[in-house]
């Protein structure tokens, strides 16, 4: 029994020594290092545009209808010749999502006929006041000046798995795929 206990001590000690000198920590030093999200991660919402800059959202309110938490508030307005905002007859003048009610289920993403509302990879949603949790349209609208990065065409019904991304994903589960 004593020899077994000493063997246990040897296992622990050598493991600690190996970790101390050879590394191998699995800890991510957040917030200096942040983890890449998997391809269809449901984070904070984004309103997409077309390539030429027109908004995709036509204010049909299907997302508000399907939302199980009633988190989306939508008011539509007409497109005029002078002010063509979206590629249809109407656009969403007021578009707000209450992030504290949202359960990030992705139903709005599935329901949208224009592929406008998508759930992006942002998960850092902490705010200091409760009123800050209402996301307005300008917070969610796509564009590099909002810090969303480059524009990506994202259609949830089209598979974005190519041979390279598949091989890369098999090596590293958090690999960045075509998003």
């Amino acid at each position, binding site marked *: *029994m*004593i*020899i077994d*206990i000493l063997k*246990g*001590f040897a*296992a*622990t*000690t050598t*493991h*600690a020594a190996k*970790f*101390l000198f050879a590394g*191998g*920590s*699995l*800890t991510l030093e957040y917030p200096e290092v942040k983890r890449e999200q998997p391809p269809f991660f449901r984070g904070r919402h984004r309103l997409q545009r077309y390539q030429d800059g027109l908004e995709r959202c036509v204010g049909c309110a299907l997302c508000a209808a399907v939302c199980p938490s009633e988190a989306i508030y939508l008011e539509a307005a007409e497109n005029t010749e002078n002010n063509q905002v979206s590629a249809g007859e109407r656009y969403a003048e007021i578009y707000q999502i209450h992030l504290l009610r949202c359960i990030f289920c992705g139903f709005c993403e599935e329901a949208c006929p224009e592929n406008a509302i998508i759930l992006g990879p942002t998960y850092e949603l902490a705010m200091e006041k409760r009123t800050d949790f209402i996301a307005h349209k300008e917070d969610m609208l796509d564009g590099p000046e909002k810090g969303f990065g480059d524009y990506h065409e994202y259609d949830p019904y089209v598979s974005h798995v190519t041979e390279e991304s598949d091989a890369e994903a098999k090596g590293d589960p958090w690999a960045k795929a075509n998003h």
Partner: protein
Amino acid sequence: MQPLLDALGQLVGGPGNALILLLALLKIVVLLASILGVLPFIILYERKLISWTQDRPGPNRSGPWGLFHGLVDGIKLFFKEEIIPTGADRFLYLIAPTLVTAPAFLALCIVPIGPIIDGPALTAVGSFLGIAPETLGPSGSVSQIAIAVTNPNVGILYVLAITSIGVYGMTLAGWASNSKWSLLGGIRASAQMISYEISMSLSVIGVLLLTGSLNLYDIIEGQKGGVHHWNIWAQPLAFVLFVIAMFAETNRLPFDLAEGESELTGGFHTEYSSMKFALFFLGEYVNMITVSAICSTLFLGGYMGLLPLFPEDSPLYYLAGPLLLPAKIFFFLTLFILARATMPRMRYDQLMNLGWKVMLPLGLMNLVITAVGVGLGADPDTGKVTLPAKFAIGAVTLALLFAADAFFTSKSKGRMLRDYQNVRPEAA
């Protein structure tokens, strides 16, 4: 310095008494400051070492390598809310943490940290400080300075007595919290500590037979001359028993049923918060340091190094001691922390079984073997035990240790197989 002593001597009856008073105060302050100063880093070291065995880096956010973690932990505990449960016996509730912490500090007072300064070294110190030889000198009022807070002649007996008071703290904490889980934890802690004190005392008596004196300085002087003179080679079984008793006395894994985080939701310190909990926490670590220091003194040569490198008249001889003893204490603390990372918790009946049915007989047999060895192997002129006799005692007790290990392991395996026969006959 002498005028100061003379001035103080007007109050206390002589500059000698004044010097004794000042020395005592200085030693107490140095001991308290060093222990309380190093404690945050011991806490950090524990958390870091356990993390390394689990492939994670440990606390590294507060300060570089997490060095401020102990301080931040203390500040956090200071700001927590003080909750006293209704129906709690207020007086006992409030003094219980001190009854756990104070004996640990008291027992640390007699541990020899360095050799006794007397003779020519004392006159050198006296002339350096500017104290007259009548006060501090081989023929003065104060004829030696021991690098320990105090040096009673009953050294080790005092330690055993003081650690018994620590039992009161845990029992009263459990009782005064007015909560059934705390009470159970307190009762279990006290029963466990009492059981293992007996084994601890028996292993200590083995060392005393070899030394012939209770004074801790005599015990260390008996191990002078190099690493082959250390008591661990003469008393390996006693060393193993003492180490196991060390874990049980400080309520550390694998014996931490009383305070196990997953057992009784905290055991006897469930109802404690803020600074009172901090005192329990502190007391546990100081207890660890104390028993490590006692074990180093009894078995590993105390402040002595592996080789007798320095002659007695060089100042390095007196400076090496305070560095070597902390190194040995650090080794034992690492042992404590690695045991916490390695071993599962013992069930209460297994714990009591080990204490009474395994360690007590082994301690008694160790005592008998040592007594026979000392009786046969003592040098008839000096009365000290010769080195070959010590090695012979060590060999016999080590053989007894392995035989007992095989015996008790087969007994528990037999019990396990018998239980299997009742439940799953095909697996036995």
